[in-house]
């Protein structure tokens, strides 16, 4: 699903955000990426989404080589990814339901499926009752859950969630992690970055990756 070999990411200003990483993620894997702020967690997810490209090394996501010059194929690849951005990236002036549906409008779904998927996803994050609220009227925690609903409603092959529980209370956080886990049974891979190590479920089949200053400092396979 993801194959990274000797991948580094160096920003134009000289910051090396990712430094020589090797990584393999298989279908149905649940991967937690932990590490202090600034250790490169977000940068890693950006590489997987094709927002940034490796400056050294080779990276393959869902069979697609992640290189500059492949932009239209990478755009297509993104339709198979469910991204949850650290800053949510919800679209203002639109309702919660519209935001969730917007992630699916250009997928090849039957018309009725759109509403049904959105409704299901909102129910799973506990926000059915907010479906017709404008997103700018939501709290941080609610916005985060809308972002999660948008990502999972599309039924992606790969979920990339950047600190998805960062703004949630414990009950909600556990509920969201359970939601993500429900996807790995359908062979969807889930990669979650988080600070909240205490919530990580160790008994389930999951990988744990510790990042430090752009390098993979250790890795524990579940």
């Amino acid at each position, binding site marked *: 699903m993801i194959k990274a070999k000797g991948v580094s990411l160096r920003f134009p200003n000289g910051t090396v955000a990712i430094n020589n990483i090797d990584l393999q993620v298989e279908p149905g894997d649940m991967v937690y990426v932990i590490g202090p702020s600034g250790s490169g967690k977000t940068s890693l997810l950006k590489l997987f*989404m094709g*927002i940034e490209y490796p400056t050294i090394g080779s990276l393959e996501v869902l069979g697609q080589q992640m290189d500059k010059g492949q932009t239209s194929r990478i755009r297509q690849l993104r339709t198979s990814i469910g*991204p949850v951005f650290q800053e949510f990236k919800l679209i*203002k*002036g639109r309702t919660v339901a519209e935001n969730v549906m917007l992630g699916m409008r*250009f997928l090849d779904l039957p018309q009725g499926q759109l509403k049904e998927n959105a409704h299901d996803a909102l129910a799973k994050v506990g926000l059915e009752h907010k479906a017709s609220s404008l997103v700018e009227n939501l709290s941080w925690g609610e916005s985060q859950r809308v972002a999660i609903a948008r990502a999972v409603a599309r039924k992606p092959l790969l979920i990339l969630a950047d600190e998805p529980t960062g703004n949630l209370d414990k009950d909600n956080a556990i509920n969201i992690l359970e939601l993500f886990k429900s996807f790995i049974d359908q062979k969807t891979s889930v990669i979650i970055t988080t600070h909240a190590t205490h919530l990580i479920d160790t008994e389930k089949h999951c990988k744990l990756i510790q990042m430090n200053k752009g390098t993979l400092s250790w890795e524990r396979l579940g």
Partner: protein
Amino acid sequence: MKLFSSNAGYFFKEVKTMIRLNLFSNSLTIFSTGLIFFILAMIISGWWVSSRVVDVVQKEAEINVYLDDEILKNNTAVIQMVESIKGIEGVQAARVVDQDEAYNRMVEILGKEASVLSKFDDNPFSSFVELKINLQEIDPVLEKLTHLVGVEHVRDNREVLERLRNIAEALRVVGILVVAAVGISTTVIISHIIRLGISNNKEQINTLRLLGAPELFIAFPFLLEGLLLTIGGGILAVSLATFSISYLYVQMAGPLPFIPLPPVKELVFGMGIVVMSLSAVLGFVGSLLGLVSVNNH
């Protein structure tokens, strides 16, 4: 195609949101394109009317030959005259229009105003010979007619026709210039408002790209916005022009009853089709230009 049909409702809602969030610029755009299209509509109508009038007058290119009184008194002399006129090369037919017929024709032309004729005690019209000719040979025919003995004077409508032709030609040239000016200014206005819309929605566009939306899906609401704005301007212009044309027709019907104006419905319909299709095309081109100019940055 499915991308568009299944998302039609969404696209229109997006356009509505974009227009609502930028109501002032968008209203101004509809208004200014409406004004531009109105000028265009009036020029096109003027050109059409004048060229139609030229067509009609040209078909009726008529030559009336008035004979000396001496000859008119003598029927056989008149018949002889008609025969010799027929003999001129280029003349297709010639017949005598007598006083009564000339009078009746004028009654028909004047219509409601015909009552003025009753102010005359005698029939004020004289009989004349009416000719049908080959238009190309109008000059040599006129030349020969004036040299014919017994011809008092010859009346033709070349001068009127010439003047009308000049007007039609001038309107055609002005029309072309105006179409060019309208084309340029509309595309500039629309491409600007589309650029504005795109920069106002930068974040949203970026998010859609991150979600994997195709570029066409992202661009389509902007295309639709440009199209709806110019079509709005077009509708405004056509309504305004329809109103103005109807008013002008009423004004002209009184003092200028001879002018064979095309039916007002036909004129308004034709003008409406031209203006609306032009507005749609320009809206499309303008927004496309706006999109392309942003993409290249």
